[in-house]
Structures are given as structure tokens and as C-alpha cells.
């Protein structure tokens, strides 16, 4: 029994020998600590301080065709350009504008089409040409997007003009409706005055004017009702015909129809030369009743400006996320995961290569220590080193940069621990495969590069083709970024896949590394 315990004790002591050695070796390399922690942290800090996070203004020149009657006054269009597009100039000289663009003095040229009306009136859409001079793919995408938004804005502008013109020409709109009763009263007063003065002809003329006013008001109400119904249809409001505004407009239409009938009856009765005010008094009384109904209903009508009808929807952003991190706060979890992976892989990728290079692997092969014990010892020592470095980085990020940790500390530690474990496994795999330190460093750098492109650190994973996403999911940092963002910024538990993934990588890579090392320990 004692012998067995002694053997077990030695099985613990042998891997433990590496813990002391490797930790002391790392501790004696302050430059390495600086390179691995302080330098990346300073980079993050500089990014945080220096990155404004706003889209730079896109300086735009608007080109109006020379033969167009459109104004070339910049102020006339200034308000129509949506951020980040900033109207720098309006010109008729398309060539000059394009030269400025080629010289990169401006960012965008928006050229109105020539003969736009002829094109539109022939049933075709007129093209607004947008020129840009950009190499950066993202920037190109954004410029195309901004151009589309700007074109939409111009279309709205045109539509708004059309609607407003339409309202004006038909002399309708809400103001016309609400003014109708007063104008009707005035007309009736003038009618009564003409009758009392025995001026039949004048009376007939007043009646004719009132009938015209009523017809136009009715047309306006009908148009208003149609626009309301069309808008309702476009926004999917199938119950619109029963809605109060539409019902009110229908009521107004009925009132106006009855007023129109009353006015017609009055006109007919006044054809009799003996007719006096008393002849049409019942009709005017009836009209007055309808007018009062109309006035009451018209007051309840909503005031809908043309702007609202042109652009009935505006966005009201409401972020349900528990926090709205700025750029530094958002990227901090990713940087933490990236640094942990890079530190762990860099340290461990060199671990076994250096032992081989100095000849100590040969001594381990002769000694009673097994490949598994060597790997266990190294794994534990680098896990401790990595955990200490990760803790320092995490504390600096949380307390130094005030990045929130809304979730559970244990979940936070779990994600970091798993990223570390998986990264150590990858590092040991590299170390077991490569034969020189240069190769190990190259491999670590390639993984860092892959991490930047494929981990979702800068580019969303969904932007990658499915086969390429495989690369993302063999990188521990991919799980780390998602897991840490969820725990730190959303305050929820890390998704299961961010736990299972790195655990599987850690087990897989360490197992394969162990097999490689076992193969290297084998008798040749």
C-alpha cells in the first residue's frame, strides 16, 4: 500500500516539476509580459481614445443638367441631403465635378438626369447617377447604401411636392374643410340680402357660387378619403373604412350632398319670379342643420400633413439590450478573448520546441516521466500562467476601461478558462508538430491572423460562406468573443455552444498533441 502511495505521489511530483520551472522562466522575462499584456492593452486603449465611432461626412456635389430649370443654389437642396452626405456644391458642370472626384477632393457626385420629365412622362424611371471613387469594399458598400437612401429621399421630396400641389390645386385639405361652414354662412347671408333687395339674379348667382363651393369641398373630402384609404391599404389597415376619420369624411360627404340638394332646390324655387326669402327659408333651415353637422364632424377630422402621407413611417429605435456599449466597451470582450488565445498559443507553441531544441526531450525520454506527464505538467504550468495573465487583463478591462460585466463572474471565468484551455491545446499541438521555433512563431502568427479575420472580431461570422465558417469554429477565440459579449454586455449566461466548442477543442487538440509527443518519445 505504501509503495502504491509512493508511486502515486511521484506521479504528481513529476508533472509538478514543470509548474515551478515554467512559471519561474516566464517570471524572469519581464519583456515577454510587456509584449503579451501591456502592449496589446495600450493598443486597445489607443483605439478607445482615438476611434470616434462616427461615419465621416461624405462630401457631395450635386450636378443639375445645364438645360434644367432646377435651381443651382446650394441652400435649395441642403436640407434634402441626409447624413452622412453633406452637400458641398451644386453645379451644372458635370466634368468639373467628376474631376474633383477623381482628385479625391470630394467623395460623391450625384448627377440629376437630363430630360427627366420626358423620361418619366414616357412611363420610365429617370436615373440619378451617383459617382464615387473608392477602393475600400466596405466604404463602397456604404456609399451605395447612402446613395440609395439619398435617392429615396429625393423621391420623397418629389412626391411631397406632388401631394402638396394636389392639395393646393383642389383647394382642399383640412383647412378648406374647416373653413367651409363660415364661407357657406357668408354666401347664405349674401343670398338673403339679395332676396330681401328683390335681386333675383344676384340671388341665383349666390346660389350658383355656393353650389360650386360645396362641390369643390365635396371633391376635396372625397380625395382626402381616398388618400386615407390608400394609405390604410399600404400600411395593411384593413379596418380603415370603419375608422372614425373615414366615417367622418363619409358623413361630411353625405352632409355636403344634402346641402348641395338643398341649394339646388332653392335655386329651382327662386326660378319663380314671386319667390322671396320665405320661399326658400325651409331649404336654408335644412342647409343650416346640415352645415352644423358638417362643422361638428369637420372639427373631428385629423390634420394630416403631406409629409406624413409621403413618409407615413419614421423609425423610433428602442434597444432592448441591457446596455448600449460604445466601441471600446463592445470590442473589449473580443480583445480579451483574442489576447488570451494569442498569449496561450504563443507561449505553448514554443514550449515543446524549445525543450527539443535544448535536448531535454531526450532526457525526458530516459527519465521515468511519461509524455502524458510532460504534457500535463506543461499544460498546468501554462494554464496557471495564462490564468494569471487573463485575470490581470480582465481586471484592467473591467476596472481600468470601465467595461461592464453585467453577468455572473463564474460564467465569465468559465468562458475565459475554456478559451485558455482550448488555446493551450492548440499551442501544444503546434509545438508537437513543428520542428523549429521559427515555425512555431509563424504558426502562432497565422492563427492570430485567422482570429482577426474569422472569429467575428471585426467581421460578422454570417458574412462568411459556410465552408469558411469552419475555420471560425476551430478557433477558440470565436467562442470566447461570443461568450464574453453575452456574459459581459448582455448579462446572460454564455450560450451552450460557446462552452461546448472550446471544451471539445481543448480535449481534441490536447489528445492529438499527446499522441504526437508519445510518438516522439517512442523508441526509434
Amino acid at each position: 500500500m505504501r509503495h502504491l502511495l509512493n508511486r502515486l505521489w511521484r506521479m504528481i511530483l513529476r508533472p509538478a516539476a514543470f509548474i515551478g520551472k515554467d512559471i519561474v522562466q516566464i517570471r524572469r522575462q519581464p519583456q515577454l509580459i510587456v509584449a503579451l499584456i501591456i502592449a496589446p492593452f495600450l493598443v486597445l486603449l489607443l483605439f478607445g481614445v482615438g476611434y470616434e465611432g462616427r461615419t465621416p461626412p461624405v462630401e457631395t456635389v450635386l450636378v443639375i443638367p445645364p438645360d434644367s430649370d432646377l435651381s443651382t443654389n446650394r441652400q435649395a437642396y441642403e436640407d434634402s441631403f441626409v447624413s452622412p452626405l453633406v452637400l458641398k456644391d451644386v453645379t451644372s458642370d458635370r466634368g468639373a465635378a467628376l474631376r474633383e472626384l477623381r482628385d479625391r477632393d470630394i467623395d460623391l457626385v450625384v448627377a440629376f438626369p437630363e430630360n427627366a420629365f420626358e423620361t418619366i412622362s414616357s412611363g420610365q424611371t429617370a436615373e440619378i447617377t451617383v459617382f464615387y471613387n473608392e477602393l475600400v469594399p466596405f466604404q463602397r458598400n456604404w456609399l451605395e447604401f447612402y446613395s440609395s437612401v439619398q435617392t429615396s429621399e429625393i423621391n420623397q421630396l418629389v412626391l411631397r411636392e406632388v401631394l402638396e400641389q394636389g392639395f393646393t390645386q383642389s383647394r382642399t385639405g383640412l383647412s378648406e374643410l374647416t373653413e367651409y361652414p363660415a364661407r357657406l354662412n357668408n354666401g347664405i347671408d349674401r343670398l338673403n340680402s339679395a332676396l330681401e333687395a328683390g335681386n333675383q339674379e344676384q340671388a341665383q348667382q349666390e346660389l350658383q357660387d355656393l353650389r360650386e363651393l360645396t362641390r369643390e369641398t365635396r371633391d376635396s373630402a372625397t380625395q382626402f378619403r381616398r388618400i386615407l384609404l390608400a394609405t390604410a391599404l399600404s400600411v395593411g389597415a384593413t379596418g380603415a373604412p370603419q375608422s372614425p376619420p373615414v366615417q367622418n369624411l363619409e358623413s361630411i360627404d353625405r352632409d355636403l350632398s344634402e346641402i348641395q340638394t338643398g341649394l339646388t332646390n332653392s335655386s329651382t324655387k327662386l326660378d319663380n319670379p314671386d319667390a322671396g326669402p320665405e320661399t326658400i327659408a325651409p331649404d336654408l333651415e335644412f342647409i343650416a342643420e346640415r352645415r352644423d353637422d358638417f362643422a361638428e364632424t369637420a372639427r373631428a377630422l385629423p390634420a394630416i400633413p403631406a409629409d406624413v402621407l409621403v413618409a407615413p413611417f419614421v423609425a423610433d429605435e428602442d434597444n432592448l439590450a441591457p446596455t448600449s456599449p460604445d466601441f471600446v466597451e463592445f470590442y473589449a470582450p473580443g480583445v480579451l478573448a483574442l489576447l488570451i488565445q494569442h498569449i496561450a498559443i504563443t507561449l505553448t507553441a514554443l514550449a515543446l520546441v524549445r525543450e527539443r531544441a535544448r535536448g531535454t526531450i531526450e532526457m525526458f525520454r530516459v527519465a521515468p516521466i511519461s509524455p502524458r506527464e510532460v504534457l500535463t505538467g506543461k499544460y498546468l504550468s501554462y494554464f496557471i500562467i495564462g490564468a494569471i495573465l487573463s485575470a490581470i487583463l480582465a481586471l484592467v478591462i473591467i476596472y481600468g476601461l470601465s467595461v461592464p460585466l453585467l453577468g455572473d463572474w463564474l460564467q465569465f471565468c468559465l468562458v475565459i478558462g475554456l478559451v485558455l484551455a482550448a488555446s493551450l491545446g492548440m499551442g501544444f499541438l503546434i509545438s508537437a508538430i513543428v520542428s523549429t521555433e521559427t515555425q512555431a512563431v509563424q504558426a502562432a502568427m497565422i492563427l492570430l491572423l485567422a482570429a482577426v479575420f474569422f472569429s467575428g472580431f471585426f467581421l460578422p461570422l454570417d458574412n462568411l460562406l459556410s465552408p469558411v465558417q469552419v475555420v471560425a469554429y476551430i478557433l477558440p477565440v470565436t467562442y470566447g468573443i461570443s461568450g464574453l459579449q453575452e456574459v459581459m454586455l448582455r448579462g446572460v449566461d454564455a450560450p451552450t455552444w460557446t462552452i461546448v466548442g472550446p471544451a471539445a477543442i481543448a480535449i481534441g487538440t490536447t489528445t492529438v498533441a499527446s499522441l504526437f509527443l508519445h510518438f516522439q518519445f517512442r523508441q526509434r
Partner: protein
Amino acid sequence: MDISRGEIIGIVGPSGAGKTTMIRLLLGLYKPSHGEVTVFDKAPGKFDRMDRERIGYLPQQFLLYEDLTVRENLLFAAGTYGLGPRERRHRIDALLERLDLADASDRLARDISGGMQRRVALAATLVHQPDLIVLDEPTAGLDPVLRESIWEMFGHLRENGATLVVTTQYITETERCDRILLINNGQVVASDSPDGLRDQVFGGELVRLKSEALSDDLAAKLLALDFVRDGRRTSPKEMEIVVESAHAAIPRLIGAMNAEGHEIEEIEEVQISLDTVFVELVRRSSDVQE
């Protein structure tokens, strides 16, 4: 070839002869392409942990961890053999004393001299008190004084029952070995004690004789003596004579010369260096192989 417990076996041979390969075969690092190696009554490939705990190995290119102190290097070496903390401390202190490293124990390995580094490496090999100590050129690059002290220590280890297998390019060092294995081109050229090897090369001990009266006739008479095995004239007045024992032969040679009426001006035993033996054996081996 058998190696007994408590022997020092010296393996010598020119560069590339196969000394390190032989050591690696003994340690189980290499599998023999043919033939058989048995250590502790088993093939090295079948060593278990207990067997390995009995072996101490100093590779030819052993490098210390330069960023660790002398003591930390030894602590790590002891740890890989599963020594407990107390046992480590005790043994390391003793080794540091014995190898005159106590004052350097807290210095970084990179800051000590090459000789001290080699001694630290040796201490790391011995820290777990192995029964079989395999040392690949342990004195390479060391000054003669240090080499002497290290070989003294090998003697102490042998006295304590350890078996040492030592490769070296310093042939004279193998005088301290119980047996020498001479290897050339992967072949064992000779295997014997230092004196045995001399015997193999020269057939006995060598006596150099100088006389003004030396002539062909006189030389022939001397070579015909019954205790003389061989000999040759090296100059008109000198000749070397191979005898079984120089100590016994010198008085008898003086007597024989006097009986012939001649005086001997000088007579002495020639100390045949192992370098000479080595060169001769390698030359013969190469001739045979050609």
C-alpha cells in the same frame, strides 16, 4: 559484451564512430537493427518507470535552463524523477557541496562558467542517485584540473556501487576505466582493460635500450632471449624490446648485454600511451575493413 555492476566502462572512438548511438541503444532510445541489448536483465525498450529511476543520463548536448538558477535547475531535474521536496533539498545540498557549486547555487545558469555549467549538468544527472550512470562526453570542453576532479568523483561513485558508462574523446581519461570499448565505424574494435589493450597492440610491455655497441648481431641475440617476445631497432644505437614484464626483463637484459661484454648506456620501460594504442588499433581496424 557484459558490463558488471560497479564498473566504469569507457567508450572511445573517433568522431562518428557510433559512441552516442551505442549509448542510446543502452538507454532504449534506439532500437537495435540487429543484435540484442539487455540492461537490468531486460531489453531497454521494455524499461518501466522503476528501471528508468535507476538510470542517470547526461547527453552530449545537455543544456541547462539558462534562466533558472543552479538550484532551480537541479530542483527541476529531481522533480522529473519524482523526488519529494525534502529529499530533493537534501540531495541537492550534498551534490552542490561535492561538486564545489554551493556558492553558485543561486546564480543563474547563464552567469556561471562553462565548467560550472557542466558540473551542474552532472549534478542533475546524479541527483536521483542512479545505479547506472550513462555519460556522453561529460568532460568535453573542461580544463584538465576539472576533468581530473570529475574522474575522481566517478571513482567515488563506482566505490558506492554505481556502474558508469562514459564516452570520451580524451583517450588518457580511459586509464581510469575498468574497461575500454573501442569503436570505429560502428564496429567494436577492441574491448579490454587499459593494460589489456596495450597487450593487444604491442604483445606486452615495451623496454627501450640504448648502447653504442648495438649491432645487428647483438640485436638478434637479444631478440632471441626466451623472455623477449618481439623487438626492433629504432636507430643504429637504439632498439625497443617487447617483454611480458618490463620490471622483470630490465635486469635480465642488462645481464645479457654484460655477458656479451657490452655496456648499456640507457634502459627504461616505455610508457605506452593509450593514444598510441588507440591510433594503432584504429589503424589496424581500418586496414582490415579496407
